Structures are given as C-alpha cells and as structure tokens.
C-alpha cells in the first residue's frame, strides 16, 4: 500500500489499455497507451497491482485480459452460428478478434456489440482474384453476417405484436378505383434485403442441424423479406419483382407508383404482374408485412 494514491482516471485508463491489448498483458503493460498513463514495465507492475500468495501481478491481470476477449467472442459466436459454421471456429475467432480490436464496445448493452460486424467483414474481405467473376467465398461469409445481424435487430427491435395490423378483409374492401392511390404502411420491423447466396436456407439448416450441418450453397441472387411474428423472426424468399414492388411500398410509394417502379426495374410485363399481385398482397398481409392502409384523401 502507498501513501500517495495515483489518480483513479490514470489507473483505469492504464488497466483498460492493459487488459484489452491484443498481445496479452505484457504487451499491454508495454504499450504506448498504458505507458502514457503509468510508466511501469511488466517486471515493475506490482507497483500498481499487488501479487497474491499464489499469483504474481501479471497472472492476476491475465484473468481480466483473457476474460475480455473470451466473453465477447462467446457473445459473437452465439449471435452468428451460421457464419461460425461456414467459416470454422478458428477463422471465425479471427474475424471476431479483429473486429473487437477495430470496434470495441461503446454501449451499455451487448446487443449493440455486433452492430458493424457485417461492415467490418466487408471492409476487410480479401482482394478478389484478377479475372474472377461472380460471388465468391468471402461474399458468402459477408452475406451470412448481414443476415444474422438482421435477425438480431428484428428479434429485439420494435415489432408488430402489440399494434394494429392490416387484415385481409381490409384489402378486399378497398374499391377497385382506389387501388392505384393506396399506400400500404409496413410494420416497423420489416427488412428487405438482397444476398448473393441463399443464406436464409443455410442459416436455418445450421440452426436445426443435429450432426455436421449443411454444406455451403452455390451462389444465387436472393431476395428476402425479414420480419417478426409472435416474437419470432420470420423470413420469406421473394422474386426480384416482388422485392422491387415491396421496396417501393416501404419507401412510401402509392401502389400505382410501386408497380410502375417494379415493372421498370425488372422488365416485367405489367399484365403479368397485375394478375399476380392480388394474391401476393393476401400472402404478405397474412405474413404481417403491413400495419395499415391509407386510402386516397385519408389524412396521414
């Protein structure tokens, strides 16, 4: 014990720099960030951290240093089971370890920890081989990260369970002449996403696997609507034209404008689309994609 206590701020910044250092406690003690606070070497660290009868000061600090990464890796492993399965534990740990160094938690909740993990995967992906075309293995891993993070957001974000939902008969009751100007209001949790691989099937297969788990799928442009019903995340595969139609609706277009946008973007025949979309809206309404419908002249 000493008669002249150090400033608590310095001790905390020193300890944080030491236990979060990727090279371990000795690397942390010798780091510039730690030395800027308290200039001790690993041989002198008992001037800050006292030893116990059984452990020296470095060993004692290692409990915190080991736990820091182990705890947060455990969280990421739990949140990204399909990505972990695809990449393998060692590679996944490498991604996660790199991510934790580049984006340490700034939040009081672990729910925010992986918020920019998909972006990190994208930014650190290996350079594509010259001449190589089409989606590759890193694209698959990035897609999985995006999907599983979306699952987390939808699972614990605002959902439709306690609010009003659009009912099928409300759609049926809309006069034919009003349809072009109808605006459908999506539920807050609805996410429309595109992927280069059918990652939704792969992720479900991993979660349900009893044995080795699924093999990676071949590339296939994939469009998904992800929402929540009865507090469980649901995903529905869409065709390109369905995706474009829903995208326009989510952005606030009237049905007529949404159809026009979908037709233009997908080069679909408007007659073909018109024959189908009544059924689509019944399915999407049953799937709880929409909370309300606004008719022409209705106040927003």
């Amino acid at each position, binding site marked *: *014990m000493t*008669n002249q*206590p*150090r400033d*608590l*701020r310095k*001790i*905390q*910044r020193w*300890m*944080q720099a030491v*236990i*979060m250092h990727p090279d371990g406690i000795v690397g942390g003690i010798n780091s510039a960030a730690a030395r800027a606070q308290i200039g001790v070497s690993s041989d002198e660290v008992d001037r*800050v*951290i*006292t030893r*116990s*009868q*059984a*452990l020296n*000061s470095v*060993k*004692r*600090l290692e*409990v*915190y240093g*080991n*736990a*820091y990464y*182990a*705890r*947060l*890796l*455990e*969280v990421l*492993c*739990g*949140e990204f089971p399909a990505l972990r399965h695809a990449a393998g534990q060692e590679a996944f740990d490498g991604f996660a370890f790199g991510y934790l160094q580049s984006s*340490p*938690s*700034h*939040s*009081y*909740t*672990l*729910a925010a920890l992986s918020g920019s993990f998909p972006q990190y995967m994208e930014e650190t992906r290996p350079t594509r081989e010259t001449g190589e075309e089409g989606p590759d293995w890193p694209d698959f891993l990035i897609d999985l990260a995006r999907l*599983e993070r979306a*699952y987390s957001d*939808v*699972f*614990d974000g605002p*959902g439709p369970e306690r609010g009003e939902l659009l009912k099928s008969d409300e759609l049926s009751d809309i006069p034919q002449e009003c349809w072009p100007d109808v605006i459908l209001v999506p539920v807050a949790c609805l996410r429309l996403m595109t992927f280069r691989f059918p990652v939704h099937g792969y*992720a*479900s297969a991993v979660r349900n696997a009893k044995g080795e788990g699924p093999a990676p799928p071949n590339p296939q442009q994939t469009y998904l609507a992800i929402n*929540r019903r009865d*507090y*469980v*995340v*649901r*995903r529905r595969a869409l065709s390109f034209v369905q995706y474009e139609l829903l995208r326009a609706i989510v952005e606030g277009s009237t049905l007529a404008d949404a159809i026009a946008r979908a037709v233009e973007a997908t080069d679909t025949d408007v007659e073909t689309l018109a024959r189908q979309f009544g059924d689509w809206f019944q399915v999407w309404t049953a799937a709880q994609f929409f909370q309300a419908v606004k008719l022409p002249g209705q106040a927003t």
Partner: protein
Amino acid sequence: MVIPRLGHPNIGLGLGLRTVHYRHILAHNPQVDWFEIISENYMDSGGRPRYVLEQVAERYPIVMHGVSLSIGSTDPLDFDYLKRLKNLADSIGALWLSDHVCWTGVAGLNAHDLLPIPYSEAVLKHLCERIGIVQDLLERPLVLENPSSYVTFADSTMPEWEFINRMAEKTDCGLLLDVNNVYVSSVNHDFDPVEYLQAVPHERVVQFHLAGHTNLGTHCIDTHDGHVIDPVWELYRLAHRLTGGASTLLEWDAKIPEFPVVHAEVLKAKRFMDEELVEVGVVRDDQRATQPLVEVRGDSATVPHPAAFVVAEAE
C-alpha cells in the same frame, strides 16, 4: 436511525430470470418467491425478452440487477442509460435496483466486465458523489454489490469491507452481499471471509447473492456455472445469522441446467437459515421432470459472468 434493509422486506428465495427458462416459467408458474433480471437485457427490448418480462412481472415480484452502471468509472455518468433504467423500473414495478461496486470501462468504452477499484479515500469520495447523483436521478436508493475480483491495487489504503461500509454509511445506499463473491475474493486476495462478513453493515444488506464458481487451484473465478459449494453455504449461514436474513437469489449464468435443478439449488438455502429469525414462503416445485441441459457456450471455466446477451429466435 437506519431503517433495516432500507425498508425492503425479505421476499424469500429468488432466481435470475434467464432466456432458457422462459417457456418453463410461463407454462408452469413455478413457486419461486421472486425473480431478478439483468437490467440491460430488457431496457431497450421491443421483442420477446420484454414481452416475457411483463408476463413474469404480473406473476412475481421483480428486482433489477445491472451490469453497466459503472459507478466507479471516471467517465461521466451516462444519463441516457439512467433514464432508460428508471423507465424500466417504473414500468415493471421493480422492488429495487442493484449494480456493482466496480467500473466497466473508460474513454467511452465498455469492457463488459466488472472491474475492481482501488479502495482509497479519494476513490471513496469519487464513488459517493456519483452514487448520490444516481440515487437522486433514480429517486430511490441504489443497492450495490461487492464484486468478485482478481487483482488488488497498490493504491488501496483500506480493505474492501471497510470501503463498502463507509460507502454505504455515507450515501445511505443498500448492499447486495454476494456471499460467493466474498469467498472468491477471499481466496484470490488471501483474506478471511468471516472477517469480511462480520464487518459489513448488516442492517444495510437488502439482498444476498449465491452462485457457483470455478476453483483453479491458484485462484477462483466467479463463473456462475454450477452448484454452490459447501464453504459458501456456511458463509451464507453466518451472513444470514448476522443480518437476520435477507432476500436471497441464486445466479446460474453458464451451463444452465433445466429449471427444476436451478430452483432446487436455491431452496437449499432454507437449510442454512435460522428459522427463528426469518419467515420465508413455503416453496414447492412440482415440475421436476428431467430436461436436457441447455445453453452450453464458450469456455465458461475462465470467464467471469454475467455476460448478458439474448440470442435471436428465428424461424
């Protein structure tokens, strides 16, 4: 005059509410006296965790236990966090709010660990000032827990029990006396756990925690992944006698077994109570069907808990 336990009643034997037990609790209404939640798992939830909590809160008393208050940090207090904490407490009618005598990060970071502080006059002053601000904002006394710790500081000038004693006297806060943490820290820091228990202000103990830990020979880690060991039960017996009894909660956060196993563990506490001192509700669990173990993740033998994260349920 200090009102014993801040006027909070002894509400008996409780359990930590964990996601893997949601279905069992909602389906079977087990006769647990109360539940404790990890505050941060529910503060921002708009999904199933919050929905389940509200149902549980309709059936059982709820106490909130936080892991991110960071009362010992030198970073500014997070007023947005405190506001959300208060909103949750108000909305579910939490009986009291607790957190730890620790810090979780500085410079805007969160290590998501319960990091220890030096026990010195300057740190005591710093902590008491922050406790006062938080209590004013939350409009209720805080209940603070002694953490398990793995290092001690050369800058400490008093033992942990003296620091906690003076902190409680100065701020009028309550104490959550984690008996397992006293044991773990006593092994790690070579002190006598009985001396610790005798020294804390008994009338301020609002709640006890019990948990399992991992003994690695040279030190113990507060892993919350198993049964409470006999020496900890004996310390609980002493703590119970010294305090006259207080609400008691079992934490089990890793390798979590089926609900009846966890429930049976906390019921063991009745064997260590002096029946003349306290009355607790007769607790019965008629749901003892064996279920497979659930949620085994990571290397919990080296990771202190709680690590609070809720994994998404997807179709």
